[in-house]
């Protein structure tokens, strides 16, 4: 197939897609209307279970099974990354060289690291009350640890980051989600059904039944997964070198 034919093919496909999209958009409900059938039902369900943040209720209660799937996708993606980016036989590790960092930047990293870690934990713990939740907080907490690479050097990060333990933590958190689901099945009505725990007082940390537990599991899973993922990328970019002559 020559270049001209390929271009025509792309133009035909793109044109068809554009026509369909425009046709679909013309039939959409108007922007910012007052009728929200799904939203009204989701809010009602979340309020009946004392969950202040409706999004958390949708993610970890009404559609908790979806979140299990999403967590599995992240888990599988990180697993694939670990396998693909492992150190192969024709590669060796070079010791990373220390980096000279300006003192203000280093001090900033050392001060902001615990603050960012605490903020990540805060976002995880208040997932059912305010915007945020396990995923967002987990990413913030994992990012906080990598300030040590940015503000110092890779050797400093390696001293406080035993990757093996984070891999175990990732698996433990993923299992914790499934085990909570099974507990709901045994003690309640169905897999991941939020009927086991009391719903608590509205707008407090213990409200929402199993939502805070699932939030915490996801937070730990995401934080560990991001740390492991970045560890593989950092290893490749900083330490692992191909043997010369290959």
């Amino acid at each position, binding site marked *: 197939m020559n270049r001209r034919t390929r271009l025509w093919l792309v133009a035909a496909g793109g044109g068809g897609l554009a026509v369909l999209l425009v046709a679909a958009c013309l039939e959409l409900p108007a922007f910012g209307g007052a009728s929200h059938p799904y939203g009204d039902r989701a809010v009602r369900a979340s309020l009946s279970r004392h969950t202040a*943040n409706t999004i958390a209720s949708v993610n970890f209660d009404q559609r908790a099974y979806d979140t299990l799937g999403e967590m599995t996708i992240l888990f599988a993606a990180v697993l694939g990354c670990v396998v693909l980016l492992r150190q192969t036989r024709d590669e060796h590790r070079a010791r990373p060289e220390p980096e000279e960092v300006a003192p203000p930047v280093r001090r900033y990293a050392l001060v902001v690291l615990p603050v960012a870690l605490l903020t990540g934990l805060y976002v995880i713990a208040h997932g059912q009350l305010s915007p945020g939740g396990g995923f*967002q907080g987990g*990413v913030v907490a994992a*990012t906080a640890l990598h300030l040590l690479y940015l503000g110092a050097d890779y050797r400093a990060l390696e001293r406080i980051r035993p990757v093996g333990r984070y891999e175990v933590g990732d698996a433990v958190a993923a299992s914790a989600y499934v085990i909570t689901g099974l507990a709901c099945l045994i003690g309640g009505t169905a897999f991941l059904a939020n009927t086991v725990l009391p719903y608590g007082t509205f707008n407090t940390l213990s409200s929402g039944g199993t939502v805070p537990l699932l939030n915490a599991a996801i937070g730990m899973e995401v934080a560990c997964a991001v740390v492991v993922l*970045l560890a593989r*990328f*950092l290893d490749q*970019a900083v330490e692992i070198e191909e043997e*010369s002559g290959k």
Partner: protein
Amino acid sequence: MADAVIVVALLLVAGSATAAVAVRDPVRQALVLAVLGVALAVLFTVLQAPDVALSQLAVGSVLTPLLLLLTVRKVKRRGQRKGREQ
């Protein structure tokens, strides 16, 4: 007039997304992508979706640039090594 801030956020997203496609060098693309992440977060906020905005901020501000730049560094190092051996 009431939706001025929504229009501004939409224009910022459209502009930065177009720029992210138009810029060709991966390093500069990562910079535009970081700005696109911030613009998207603002758009989600003005559309009253703070949870999605928080996800976008968490992932787009540090994680994506770091993964991209580490990959660029790895590829460049391999290129340098190949260049030295030839």
